[in-house]
């Protein structure tokens, strides 16, 4: 079965090719079967392959397919590499991916923008799963890069899925271009890595990496971090993610919550031996994580769009993961990646159901009182929120977040821990805000619940996973990756860590159900300014608009005619001017010509006589 590992990425690819080649002419039911089915089978293959791998007891398994490029000493091959890390990732991608696909067969069912759009949607989704699998299974940084760019492309395609609306197109392009900035750094990291180590094979490179000078190691790590930051929507390249919510909700769940945005975490975890060589680089990873964590949490507090709240929450959760990577809690980061994939996918899908029931209404202030009318989404949302807030002991999020914060405290002192705990409190606050405003209070819009089995089943499964995922992590992941689960929950630090979210919830309930009146502050001048500042995502977009976008557009507008062409038009003008000057001597008068001939004669004679 392990030799069939190639089937895992190949099946979604096959699904993509089938949907692509038939140009959307297949009946929708068949499309649903192909779209979700290929990923489902891939998940099964992954399951069996993973079991066999675990039984084999080997630390890793690799399957060489073919040599991609062989030029001189550069010989990247297309090889699938399975170890604990990629196994977890593969499981998350195929498993959660399948559930989301299943959900999407229902969610997109009536979404007929144009004849082939159902098929197009699943083609893109399958392509995404393929690319994501290549990303995590590739044994070579170039193959990883293939997946990396591939998921970026699919992200672009799916954000802009409703392509008739130009705003979606803008969001899609923004996502692609901003992540491309990171990718450029990533590519430069690859160049540097190859120049220094002579190989892009991850294992070879890591094995040889001890030969690097610290300076070089830092440089490579920071360049790779640039890529990770772009893909994972971390400060300072985080601005694309909220806009990316323009895509259909399953897309947000799969790409912008569960899998693609965590690719950066995967990359750094994968290259951890390299980061271990450079304390500086590690430090920067943690700083990036902490900064994102706080910025995103504050921003989430003020958003009105339910998906944008979740998007900022995703950013902050990935910030936790980066912080974990930075403080050396590698396994905790992956653990949180996994639990986050469960509960954030759950949250997105549940919010998708809410949105669908309210006819694509996404503003939480136009919802309200939905908990009775939409029980399945409500309970899913509640479980997901609990995991996000990290309710002690009963949710998966608690275990993974605790692992991160406590490791941070152990290894790096109170700063990262404190920031993390503060953000946890904020998380509790905005999550409570979302839940209270969406599901309680007065009903503002009448919902039409349309829950079929293919839509509630994924919610149920993800709900279960959001709860038991933590125990799974402590049990299985600890064995695979190590370094998890041996925390005492009784120390004062642990108690504080545990208590802050609960306080946040309490505060949230009091504030957002109106028992504590904060209107005075919110409506004051300072409060409003602060709200707008948070609402704009700490004005990053404003800044980038002025620093990069506007000057570039200005340049484009000014130089449309190509300034270099001036050299040639100028040459032309000068030539033409000379021509006109020369033509002036052509008076058409015979005697003028004769006089000139005489002058010429004088010159010739002078020359002949040697006087000139």
């Amino acid at each position, binding site marked *: 079965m392990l030799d069939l590992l190639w089937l895992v990425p190949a099946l979604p690819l096959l699904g993509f090719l089938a949907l692509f080649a038939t140009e959307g002419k297949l009946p929708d039911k068949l499309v649903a079967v192909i779209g979700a089915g290929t990923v489902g089978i891939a998940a099964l293959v992954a399951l069996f392959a993973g079991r066999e791998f675990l039984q084999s007891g080997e630390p890793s398994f690799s399957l060489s397919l073919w040599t991609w490029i*062989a030029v001189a000493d550069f010989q990247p091959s297309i090889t699938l590499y399975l170890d604990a890390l990629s196994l977890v990732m593969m499981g998350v991608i195929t498993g959660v991916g399948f559930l989301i696909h299943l959900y999407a067969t229902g969610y997109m069912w009536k979404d007929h923008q144009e004849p082939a759009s159902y098929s197009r949607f699943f083609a893109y989704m399958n392509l995404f799963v393929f690319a994501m699998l290549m990303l995590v299974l590739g044994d070579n940084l170039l193959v990883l890069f293939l997946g990396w760019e591939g998921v970026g492309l699919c992200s672009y395609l799916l954000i802009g899925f409703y*392509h008739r609306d130009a705003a979606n197109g803008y969001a899609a392009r923004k996502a692609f271009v901003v992540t491309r900035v990171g990718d450029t750094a990533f590519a430069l990291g690859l160049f540097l890595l190859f120049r220094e180590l002579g190989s892009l094979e991850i294992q070879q490179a890591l094995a040889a990496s001890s030969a690097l000078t610290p300076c070089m190691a830092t440089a490579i790590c920071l360049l790779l971090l640039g890529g990770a930051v772009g893909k994972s929507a971390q400060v300072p390249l985080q601005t694309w993610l909220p806009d990316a919510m323009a895509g259909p909700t399953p897309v947000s769940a799969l790409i912008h919550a569960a899998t693609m945005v965590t690719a950066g975490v995967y990359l750094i975890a994968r290259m951890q031996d390299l980061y271990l060589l450079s304390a500086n680089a590690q430090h920067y990873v943690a700083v990036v994580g902490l900064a994102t964590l706080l910025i995103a949490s504050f921003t989430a507090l003020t958003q009105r769009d339910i998906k944008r709240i979740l998007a900022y929450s995703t950013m902050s959760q990935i910030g936790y993961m980066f912080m974990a990577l930075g403080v050396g809690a590698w396994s905790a980061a992956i653990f949180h990646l996994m639990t986050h994939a469960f509960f954030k996918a759950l949250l997105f899908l549940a919010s998708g159901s809410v949105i669908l029931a309210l006819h694509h209404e996404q503003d939480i202030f136009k919802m309200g009182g939905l908990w009775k009318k939409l029980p399945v989404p409500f309970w899913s949302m509640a479980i997901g929120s609990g995991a996000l807030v990290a309710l002690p002991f009963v949710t998966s999020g608690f275990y993974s977040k605790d692992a991160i914060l406590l490791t941070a405290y152990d290894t790096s002192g109170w700063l990262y821990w404190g920031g993390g705990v503060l953000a946890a409190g904020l998380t509790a606050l905005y999550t409570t805000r979302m839940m209270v405003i969406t599901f309680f209070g007065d009903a503002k819009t009448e919902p039409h619940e349309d829950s079929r089995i293919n839509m509630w089943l994924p919610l149920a499964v993800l709900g279960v996973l959001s709860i038991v995922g933590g125990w799974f992590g402590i049990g299985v992941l600890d064995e695979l990756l190590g370094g998890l689960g041996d925390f005492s929950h009784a120390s004062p630090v642990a108690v504080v860590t545990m208590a802050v979210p609960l306080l946040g919830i309490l505060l949230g309930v009091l504030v957002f159900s109106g028992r504590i009146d904060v209107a005075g502050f919110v409506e004051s001048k300072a409060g409003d300014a602060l709200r707008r500042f948070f609402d704009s995502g700490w004005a990053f977009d404003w800044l980038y608009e002025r620093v990069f976008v506007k000057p570039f557009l200005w340049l484009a507008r000014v130089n449309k005619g190509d300034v270099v062409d001036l050299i040639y038009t100028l040459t032309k003008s000068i030539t033409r001017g000379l021509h006109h000057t020369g033509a002036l001597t052509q008076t058409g008068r015979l005697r003028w010509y004769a006089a000139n001939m005489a002058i010429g004669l004088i010159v010739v004679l002078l020359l002949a006589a040697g006087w000139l």
Partner: protein
Amino acid sequence: MILGAILVLLAAGALAWAAGRFVSPNAPRWVSMLAFAAGLAWAVLEWQGGAGANGLYAEQFIPWIPRFGINVILELDGLSLLMVALTMFLGIVAVVSSWDEIEAGKGFFQFNILWVMAGVVGVFTALDLFLFFFFWEVMLIPMYFLIAIWGHENKGYASMKFFLFTQISGLLMLLAILALVYFHHASSGELTFGYKALLGADISESVRLWLMLGFFVAFATKLPSVPVHTWLPDAHTQAPTAGSVILAGILLKTGAYGLIRFAVPLFPDASQDFAWWAMLLGAVSVLYGGAMAFSQSDFKRLVAYSSIAHMGFILLGVYAFNELGMQGAIVTMIAHGFSTAALFMMAGAIQHRLHTREMSRMGGLWVHAPRMGVMTLFFVVASVGMPGLGNFVGEFLALLGAFRASVPLTVAATIGIVVAAVYGLYLMQRSFQGAPNPDVAAMRDFGAREMSVMVLMMAGLVWVGVYPQPLLDMSAATIAKLGVLP
């Protein structure tokens, strides 16, 4: 055999002209289709036949003007064969893309296409500098006619600009050729235009830089590189679709080929000294071409500027002076041949349907023509440099090679990848996405004929992107024989 292929193309040109006059106006396109198909078949056969012991797939030697050491020396090695095959394939693409676009002078049109391609095949195979220059000029004149006769609204200006740029730079090259032959004669007593004899020519240090520049300017103009690129946007925009396809797909590659085959090996030391500057031009081309592409509102002009950006990678790769860079340049040549030809074909198809190239008059075309939308998306994504497609392999190798030669320039050029995403996706957005333009009531989608060519090019790009090894092996032999790499 090589001369035979060239002569077949030339004869087919005459035949097409005659057929258009005496048989039927639609006969010429079949003639040239057949000629290119036969040429492609010949190239594939040569490839299947394998290379001889000397690494050549075919060679020919016919004395021409022995008194001045001028001979017809044609050789088909790996690189040449690749380029010839691409030429023939793009010949077919050009014919298909102009299938019902041309209305007047169909016979003469095909005549010009066939003669350009004959010249190109000659350029790719000639190993006698005189003969090379001869073919260099042969491909210029018919191209001029293609633009000047069947071009769009501003064709006179564009064709003259094209002609002047290529002609003047070509004359510089002629000067350099003559000087090279003269100095070689002076030092060795042998009067010859033969490439192999001149390879080791003993030329003083002060002179060879200038001779190298003579070649470099000619090839850089053809490539084109900033700052001698301004003929290209005009020529591309004004040329008929087939002309743009040929221009972007093949003619630009003759510049790159010339750099690899002539400019660098004939003057290895001078080129080495000049390498940093050439790479600088390459990096500037990448960034400037990209930024300019973004500024354009004309579909074809945008693609034209994107070509300039892509050609920058070739300069970077060639002058990186290592095998990675050189291979990257060669793969880029081929991949760009596919991707840009396809985009120009798309631009032509849109113009044929909507009678405009202005993107402000498009928008939302996906709704009317999803096939065209998907194809545009694919080729835009390819030219943006998506891994798994040909352009990525070329550009990545070129940059990887360039990184070993100069880090700052490579960093600059890599930023060009971001710019590529900006203009590529903007092109997609303005033409096919967004709200459907109310002025466009309906648009005929691609039919089977266009789709078959498109799918072939798609397959080509995927092949180059996923398994470029056969191609790399073919060019590796050539690169090794150039003997300029450490």
